[in-house]
């Protein structure tokens, strides 16, 4: 169920990326799609009745049934990369709105054409 849900979230993100015109909304859509993908990656590592992949005084032996730790590590990396991309994209949007006065993608492409 959670896998369908995460894919649906990605699909919503893709819909937003294809239909929105505001640059900030495009970045929001990108983030929604990203969350969907991350959720999907975590979900492929889940095992029924598996425990948290950390040895502690309760779960103290490596022979226990742990959930797959690798997807969690991958998601950690992909989240951090997502943060970086989002920060950069927002900074570009700030500069675009400073120099062009608009953040609507249609207006931006029209003006680009007019200046050429």
């Amino acid at each position, binding site marked *: 169920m959670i896998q369908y849900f995460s894919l649906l979230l990605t699909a919503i993100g893709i819909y937003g990326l294809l239909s929105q015109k505001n640059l900030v909304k495009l970045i929001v859509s990108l983030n929604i799609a990203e969350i969907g993908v991350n959720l999907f990656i975590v979900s492929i590592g889940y095992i029924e009745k598996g425990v948290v992949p950390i040895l502690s005084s309760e779960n103290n032996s490596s022979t226990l049934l742990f959930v797959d730790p690798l997807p969690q590590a*991958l998601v950690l990396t992909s989240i951090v990369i997502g943060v970086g991309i989002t920060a950069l994209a927002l900074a570009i949007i700030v500069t*675009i709105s400073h120099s062009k006065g608009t953040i609507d993608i249609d207006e931006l492409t029209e003006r680009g054409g007019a200046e050429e």
Partner: protein
Amino acid sequence: MNPVWLIAVPLALAFISTFANKISNWLLILSAIFNAVAGIFLSFSSGTVSYSIGGWRTPFGIDLIVTDATRILLPVANILFFFAVIIHFSKKRASEKFSVVYTISLASLNGILLTNDLFNLFVFLEIAGVAAYLLAMTGKKGESKVAAFKYLLLGSVGSLLYLLGVAVLYAAAGTLNISAIATKVSDGLLNGDVMLVSSLLMIAGLGVESKLVPFNGWVPGVFTKSSNMATLVLASVYPVAMISTFSRVILAVGDRRALDLVIVLGVATVLIGEVIAFKQRNLRSTLAYSSIAQSGLAIFLVGIGTVEALTASVMLIINNALAKFVLFSVDSYTTEELGADDLESLYGLGRMAPVVGLIFTVSALSISGMPLFFGFRAKLLAISSSFESLLVVPIVILLAAVIEITYYFRWIFALYRPYQGEERARLSLPLELMAIGVVLAAILVFLGSSSYETLMTFSKAGNAMVDAIITLGKNLIGGV
């Protein structure tokens, strides 16, 4: 020598240059020199070697892989980067703001060429991507930002889809190592539908950077709006890494059915690229669309998948990199000296600056595939190997080649047509541009006219593209 030095040294120098801003230009030059020398050094040996990182056994840890294909692509990429740096720094007003970005992009391109791990490839693609978005912003104020934003959006969606493809493959195969997955694929251990879906996601993801047809909307904007140096790097060094990685990944872990799609997309890219390039009125956008067409040409051969086709693909990648380097640097030279690069303002340039005219002509002839030049051999091999597929494929490729020859000749003729406008100031001829241009043009002529034995290196590379990774995987499984 361990190839990880090619990644570690530029990275370390980049980190140093954050707190030593004044010398960051020198650090960039230093890393470019180091990588060029190390790249040449790497190409002296032969065979497939895998180097583990962190000391873990190969399917578990990340490993770097050096094949016969890497041995020629890696030096080419690093040396061209070094040349781009030389041309950049011979000018007085080179700013040091972006030196860090160039240094990191060098590290990431080497990482992309070397890594043998799907997720590690994603990380390096992201580094190269972010560096490229920043480089795309170096041009004219507003427009270059809009172009860079478009690139960022497409690039991030592409890497997101690639990541999803990797996740799907991991869920099925339980490993991220390309060799290990390739072995499972060739043994038929994976579900066909899962393979197909993950290959589609990966083609879409890697297709953005390789300029494949529905995903290449960023190319014209970035190539025409960003600064000269950035365009030089993005148009000649990046494709070497991106297209060869596309072929490596898709050939190793792709589904047979997806390869047919690669042929269709590649041929469509060639045709659309050439037709739009034919219509352009200024040199830089012609070259931008010609780059799209050239990557389509190198990619559709991946779909055919024979050793001959991959040999042609490697030759086309190198031909494109060398020739585009010269063409784009001549273009930036003309925009700086003459103020424009449309057909009329180029009239008479070949007479005023004979060397510039000569290197432009040689590169244009080589890229359009005229006999005596390297491009001819590459295209001949490409067309002969494309008969493996449907008959319509070689016909379309020939048609595209004719269009390409037509428009490149238009530019060559323009260069030698007498100029009749007002008097122009004497052109200043940059020595480093001429020296590098003459060297690259000489290589194109040499490879085009040398005996067949010298081209054996390329067929070894094509061979390595097809089966080096899977052989490594089989050895690993056998070794365990």
